[in-house]
C-alpha cells in the first residue's frame, strides 16, 4: 500500500534523482500548479530549468461540502517542469509510475490527446491526459505559449493529480478513504476543510450574498491595482502574487454566482492582460521591444 505521503516522497525522490530541483508550494491561493512562478515564469526564456513541487489547488466551484467522493474544493497536484523537454520524457514519466509501484505490463497505460489551455494565463500546450486503466492520473503537456509569449525551447509539464493517482494505487472509491499515512485517513486531515471552504465558496455565511459579492469585487479591484503598481515598479514576482489573488477572487465570485456572462468574460480578460504583462516583464520582452523601438527611431 502506497500512502498519499509516500506517493509524494516517491515522486519527489524520483524526479530529484533525474535532476529536478525540489521546490515548495507557493503560499498563495491558486487554481492550478501551472500558476506557480516556478512554472508560469520559468518556462519563459532560453535558460534550462527542471523543477518539481506539490501545489495545493483551490477550485471553489468544485467544492461539494465533503459529500462527493470524487470532487474537492482543494486538491493537490504534483507538478514537474522539464526545460527543455528531453527526448526521453515519456519513458521518464513511465519510470516515475514504476517508481510508485505500478506494474506497467499488468495495466493499461495510455496517452490520449488532451490539449491544455488557460485563457487567464494566455498559455496553451499540446499533449495528452495519461489514462491509467481509463482513469486520468496525469496531464502531460508540451507548453507552446505562456503569457502570450511563444516558448523556445519547449518545456514539458507533468501534472499528477495526487488524490486520483492515490485512489487508483490504494484501490479506494472515495477520496476521503485514502490513507494519508498509516492509520490516518484523508477524511481526518481534510474533511472539515472541505465542508467549511465549500460553505464559504457558496455563500452559506452570516452575510447576504450581495454583500459577499461586493467584498470580493472590492478585493479584486484592490489586488488588481496593487499588482499593476508592482508591475510598474518592475517587480514581476510580487505582481504575480497579487495577480493570483485576483484570479482567486474571480473564482470565488464565479462559484457563488456573483457575475453575469458578459462580465465574466471581462474579468477573465483583465486577469489575462495582467498575467501577460507580468510574463513579459519577467522575460524582459518589454525591455527588448523598447530597445528595438529606440534603435529604430535612431
Amino acid at each position, binding site marked *: 500500500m502506497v500512502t498519499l505521503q509516500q506517493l509524494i516522497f516517491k515522486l519527489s525522490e524520483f524526479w530529484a534523482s533525474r535532476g529536478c530541483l525540489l521546490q515548495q508550494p507557493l503560499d498563495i491561493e491558486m487554481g492550478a500548479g501551472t500558476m506557480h512562478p516556478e512554472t508560469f515564469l520559468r518556462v519563459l526564456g532560453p535558460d534550462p530549468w527542471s523543477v518539481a513541487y506539490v501545489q495545493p489547488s483551490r477550485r471553489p466551484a468544485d467544492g461539494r461540502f465533503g459529500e462527493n467522493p*470524487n470532487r474537492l474544493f482543494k486538491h493537490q497536484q504534483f507538478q514537474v517542469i522539464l526545460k527543455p523537454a528531453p527526448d526521453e520524457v515519456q519513458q521518464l514519466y513511465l519510470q516515475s509510475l514504476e517508481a510508485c509501484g505500478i506494474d506497467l505490463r499488468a495495466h493499461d497505460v495510455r496517452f490520449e490527446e488532451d490539449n491544455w489551455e488557460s485563457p487567464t494565463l494566455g498559455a496553451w500546450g499540446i499533449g495528452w491526459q495519461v489514462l491509467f*486503466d481509463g482513469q486520468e492520473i496525469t496531464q502531460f503537456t508540451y507548453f507552446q505559449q505562456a503569457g502570450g509569449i511563444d516558448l523556445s525551447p519547449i518545456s514539458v509539464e507533468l501534472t499528477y493529480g495526487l488524490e486520483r493517482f492515490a485512489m487508483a494505487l490504494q484501490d479506494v472509491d472515495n477520496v476521503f478513504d485514502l490513507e494519508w499515512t498509516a492509520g490516518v485517513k484523508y477524511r481526518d486531515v481534510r474533511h472539515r476543510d472541505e465542508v467549511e471552504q465549500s460553505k464559504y465558496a457558496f455563500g452559506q455565511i452570516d452575510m447576504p450574498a450581495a454583500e459577499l459579492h461586493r467584498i470580493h469585487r472590492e478585493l479584486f479591484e484592490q489586488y488588481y491595482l496593487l499588482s499593476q503598481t508592482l508591475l510598474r515598479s518592475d517587480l514581476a514576482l510580487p505582481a504575480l502574487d497579487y495577480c493570483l489573488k485576483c484570479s482567486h477572487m474571480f473564482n470565488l465570485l464565479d462559484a457563488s454566482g456573483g457575475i453575469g456572462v458578459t462580465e465574466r468574460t471581462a474579468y477573465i480578460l483583465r486577469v489575462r492582460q495582467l498575467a501577460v504583462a507580468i510574463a513579459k516583464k519577467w522575460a524582459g520582452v518589454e525591455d527588448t521591444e523598447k530597445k528595438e523601438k529606440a534603435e529604430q527611431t535612431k
Partner: protein
Amino acid sequence: MDRELLIEIGVEELPAAWLPGLTKQLAEKLEARLRELRMVPDVPVESYSTPRRLTGVVGRMPERQEDLDEAITGPPVSAAFNAAGEPTPAALGFAKKQGVAFDALERIETPKGTYLVARRRQRGKSAVDALPDLLTGLLRDMAFPKQMHWDAMLEDGRGELVFGRPIRWLLFLYGGRVVPYTIGRMSNAAGPLVQEVTTGAFTYGHRFLATSGRAGRSIKVRTFDDYRARLGEHFVILEHSERRDRIARELELKARKLGGRVALREHAGLVDEVADLVEYPGVVAGFFERSFLELPHEVLTTTLVHHQHYFPVLAEHGELKEAFLAVVNTSPAEERPIAKNAERVVTARLRDARFFWEADRRTKLESRLDRLHTIVFHKKLGSYRDKAERIEKLARWITEQAFGNPAEADNAAKAARLAKADLTTDMVFEFTELQGTMGGIYAREEGLPEQVWKAIYYQYLPIGVEADAPPTKAQLGPAAVTWAAVSLADKLDSVTSLMKAGERATGSRDPFGLRRQMQGIVKTLMDLPELTGVDHEIALTALVDRADPKMVGAPDGWDSAAVVAFGHDRIRYALEQRGFPLGVIRSAVSGHSADNPLRARRIAEALKALEGSEDLRALAVLFKRVKNIARELKGDATLDRAALAEPAERALLDELDARRPRVTAAAGASDYRRAFAEIAGLRAAIDRFFTEVFVMAEDARLRTARLALMADLRDLVLNLADISEIVPQTE
C-alpha cells in the same frame, strides 16, 4: 533491379481522430514527391499507421531519377532586347529565375514568333542520393489539424520543423540499406537530453509488451515484410483493419460470455476510433451497480461511449446490462486489476449522473426559461431566452401555415419554447452531447405529451442527409409534425440569424455548424411527406423570410437571398449524397426548384427514372437550342398566333397547346414523371420546327411571333427543370 523503399516516422502518440487522414495523406504526399523527383514507382504507394508510427512503403522503386530535359519558354526575342541591343530586365529576370546564364538561353521558332528558351538538362541522380530530398519534402508536406513546436529543424533553409507530435525515430530503408538523414534540433534546446533524430534500420515495438527481455528495445528490420512480421512479434498490429476486426471479434466473444451482445453496427465509429488508440488491442469486461440501470439509457450510453470509449452490453431485447466492455492496449494475464480501475471511473461518473438526474428533475423546464437569459447564443443575437421566443413563434407559424396543421400548433409552440431549457440543467452542463435528448427526457418525466417531448428530444436531428438518416417515422410516432416544425424552426433561426450577424461557413471552418444545420433543414423538407405525412413542397425562401430576425446592427445591404443560395448548395449536396447523377442534379436544382428541396428531389427522381428515354435526351439537346434562340426575343411579346402559318410551326403550336394543360396538371399533382413524359412528346414537333422553319425571319412580326413561341416553350419546360443540363456539355 527495382528496390523497396520503407519509411517509418516514429512519433509520440498521435490523436486517434487524425490517423485515417494522416494515413491517406502519407501515401498521397509520398507519391507526389516521388513524381516531382522523377522517380515514379511502378506499384502503388502503401501507407499504414498506429498511434506511434506513420509508415509508407513503395514495393518497387526506380534506381535513379529520370534525366531531366526540359525547355521553358520565356519572353519573345522582340521583347528581350532594348534599342541598344542590350537584354531587357524581363529577359534577364527570366534567365535568373531559371538558373541559366543569359548567354546560354536558346531561341525557338513558334507560329507567334521567336522566343527565348531556357533548356535545362540534368542527369538523374541515383535514388539513394535523391531520397533525402524526398523525406524532407514529406516531413514538410504532412499537414496536421494542430501542429506543435518541438525544437526540431531541417537543413533545407526553412529552419524549424513543426509536426503533429515529436518524432522519436526514423526508419528509412532503400533496398534494405539505411538512407542517411538527420532531423536537427534548435540550438537553445540541443544538448545531451535533446538530440538529433538520425535514420536507422530500427523500429520499436509495443511500449510495455515483449515476449522476452525488456519491452521498448529497438528491433532491426530489412524489408517491409520483415518489418511487419517483427512488429507483430513485438505486439504491434500494423494494419488498422486487422486491429478493428480483432476488436470486433473480441467484443462479440466477451459479450456472449456475459450473456449479451454489443451493437457493433451502431458503434461502428467507436470501433474504428478505438482501433486507432491502441497497437495491440484486448478487451476487458467491467460491471457497475444494478441500481444505475434506473438512469435513462441515453445517460448510461453517453457515459460509457463518449466519456470512456467503452461499449455498453445489451441484453436480448436491447435493454442495457450492468456491464461494459473496455478496449485496452494490452493482452493482460489478469483482467480484474484493469477492470476494477475502469469500474471506479464509470461508477464515479454514473454517481455524478444520478445526482444530476435527481437534482434536475426538481425544477420544471418551464421555470428554467428565465435562466436562459444568462446563456449567450451569439453576442449580436442575444441569449437563448431570445432564441426560444423566436423559435416558438416560428414553429407555430410553420405548423399552422406551412404545414396547414393548426391542430398541432400549440404543441409545436410549446416544444419550441422549452427546447433550449435543458441548457440550464446540470446533466447537459456535464454531458453536453445530451442536449435536446435530456430536455426530451425531462419533458417526458413531467408528463408532457409525446408530441411535445419527442419534438424536444429529436430537435437536433437530422444530421445526415440520406433518406434513411434518423429520426425515422417509427421513432417519431405521433410527434412527427411537431418535431419537424421545431427542428426546422430552430435551424432556420440559427442559420438565418447567424448569417445575418456576419457568420459564414468557409472552407473547413464552420464554427457554428451552419452547413450541418442547413443540411438538416433541407433533409427534413426533402422527406417531409415520408416523415410527417405533410405533402407540401415548401420553398426555402418562404421559410427564411419568415425566420429573418430583427437584429440591432444588421449589416447594410443584408439580403436573406444569401441564406437561400446557401440552401441551394446544400440541396445539391443532399442529392449528390443520394447518388443522383450530376446532370440530373443540375437540371433539378434550377429555376423554380432551386430553393425547394422536395420538388427538386421529386424532379431528380423523375429525370433519373426517364434517363433511358431517347426522346428526353434528344429533347434535352433541342432544348438548349430553344433556350439560346429564345434569348433573342426582346421585351415581352405575347404570342401572336395569327402570324404563325407554316405547317411545322402550326404543328408545334398545336402540340404545345394540347400538352400545356396536361404538363401543368401533372406538375400540380407532383407527378413529374408524367409531366416530363408529356414534354418529351414534343420532341418530334420541335425537331420538325427546327428543320423546316427559319426562326430569324426577315419580317419583324413573323420573327417576333416565332421567338415568342420559343419563349413559351422554354418557360413551360423551365417551370419544371432546365433539362438541357442532363446531357453532357459535349453533346
